[in-house]
């Protein structure tokens, strides 16, 4: 199994005006002129800020248009949006870009057509609200396998992730992610403090179906004792088997001489040798 850590792209903190542009790695510079028919992207949004942290019920905007209404902690919604570059902003429920002050915002988030990404509103390692953008791996999964992605978006220290008691992801810190391929199946998973057996979250039953990417978010606050897991599943990624090798060969004819043929030939050779000797003697 391979596991890779990569950083989530952390956006600006609460209340600050975003200056930096966030881009997905394969982002385009921007649409010169949006065609009437635009390619879509799939964007999921996770409300990973626990209750009592100042964002209990929020509305999420892209520019002046509302993306998600009445968004509550622990919710994850998936939308198709036209490709483009968006200024994302999170407002307290009922407030708008015209009359409200953003709780969180990130300007210039590039979303290419065909992309599959998740935006999280969560607490950073220090417990402050932050926005992160992750690209979801929707490449083909080998036959018989399942992809597991784990993202640490909690106000908590480094953790290990275990499946059926065995560590499969080590030393994951906020806001990193790790991706592993495991045989498809049902597992009991938990999250422990890094290098220990102290369970921080779980255990939880995880059904990792073949050909899917199961994305697990560890979110909440260790201090407030409300750490939890949120799960998102992307399916339809399964690859076909490599082939079918069906037969042990017991009924196959071979290129080796069978015993009976070899036996008759030996008989013939002996007979010929003997007869030729007799013929030679007769002529002598």
């Amino acid at each position: 199994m391979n596991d890779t850590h990569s950083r989530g792209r952390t956006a600006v903190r609460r209340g600050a005006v975003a200056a930096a542009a966030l881009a997905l790695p394969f982002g385009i510079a921007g649409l010169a002129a949006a065609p009437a028919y635009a390619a879509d992207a799939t964007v999921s949004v996770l409300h990973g800020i626990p209750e009592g942290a100042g964002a209990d019920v929020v509305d999420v905007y892209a520019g002046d248009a509302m993306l998600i209404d009445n968004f509550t902690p622990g919710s994850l919604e998936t939308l198709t949006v036209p490709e483009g570059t968006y200024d994302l902003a999170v407002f307290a429920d009922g407030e708008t870009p015209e009359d409200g002050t953003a709780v969180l915002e990130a300007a210039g988030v590039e979303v290419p057509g065909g992309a599959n990404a998740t935006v999280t509103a969560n607490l950073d390692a220090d417990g402050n609200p932050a926005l992160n953008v992750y690209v979801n791996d929707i490449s083909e999964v080998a036959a018989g396998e399942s992809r597991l992605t784990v993202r640490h978006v909690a106000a908590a220290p480094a953790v290990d992730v275990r499946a059926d008691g065995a560590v499969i992801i080590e030393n994951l810190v906020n806001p990193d992610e790790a991706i592993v391929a495991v045989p498809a199946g049902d597992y009991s998973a938990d999250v422990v403090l890094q290098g220990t057996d102290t369970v921080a979250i779980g255990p939880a039953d995880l059904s990792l179906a073949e050909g899917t990417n199961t994305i697990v978010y560890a979110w909440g606050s260790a201090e407030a004792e409300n750490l939890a897991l949120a799960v998102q599943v992307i399916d339809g990624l399964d690859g076909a088997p490599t082939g079918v090798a069906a037969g042990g060969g017991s009924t196959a004819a071979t290129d080796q001489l069978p015993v009976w043929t070899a036996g008759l030939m030996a008989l013939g050779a002996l007979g010929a040798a003997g007869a030729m000797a007799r013929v030679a003697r007769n002529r002598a």
Partner: protein
Amino acid sequence: MRRPRPAIVVLIGSLVLLVGAPIAWAGFVASDSTTESVETVGERPVDSSPEPETDQLIAAAPQVAGPDVERIGAPVEPRMAIDPIAPVGVRIDRLGVEAPVDAVGVYEDGSVEIPDDVSRVGWYRFGADPAQRQGSTVIVGHRDGFDQGRGAFYSISALDVGDTIDVTLEDGSDREYEVVAREVIAKEILPTSDLFAEEGPERLTLISCIGYFDRSADGYRENVVVTAVPVNSDEALDDPETGGDGSQDQVAS
């Protein structure tokens, strides 16, 4: 009349044995149906459904009660999965084949697991099943064993367009299929993405091996693939007796 010299007779007889035995054996090998080339008949159904539209108008999300706010983005509803119903038995009356079906996965090399008992066959459980009403339900079986004789699927290369295959499912129901294609394909170029597709026309695909058996390498060099469609589907022939449009090859069996 001179008596023929016995030595000459023995010599001629011996030479006949020496030369004739391997020739007889070669003839025996040539008449073995495993090495006789099997023609492809029929045609697998193609996925003729239109490509999903990737270019779309900007979707409008449903309006919610309250201030008149412009919306962007359309919610993606999670796809409702249809619970699979596993095949548990397969019967091919024309060949006298009746075999239990086990659910199988893959080996470490990614190839399909096949039941070791050659009298049993395997349904690829990570692919389609008859409850999905689409895609290819794949059942694989050994042609023969290493130290067992002929497997349940030994003779599927004799199936012809129009033959029927019956599959019993775990809920007790039966599905009937009609053969539309039989192909022999070199193992390295087996079109796995198509044969194991979970979308597209609903079909039953039987796969085994055939052809030259390479003891020093990977065994049988070819796959035999039989494709069948649900009886009464559009792809099924109107009259299995006369054979549809009559343009398929007839194979002397």
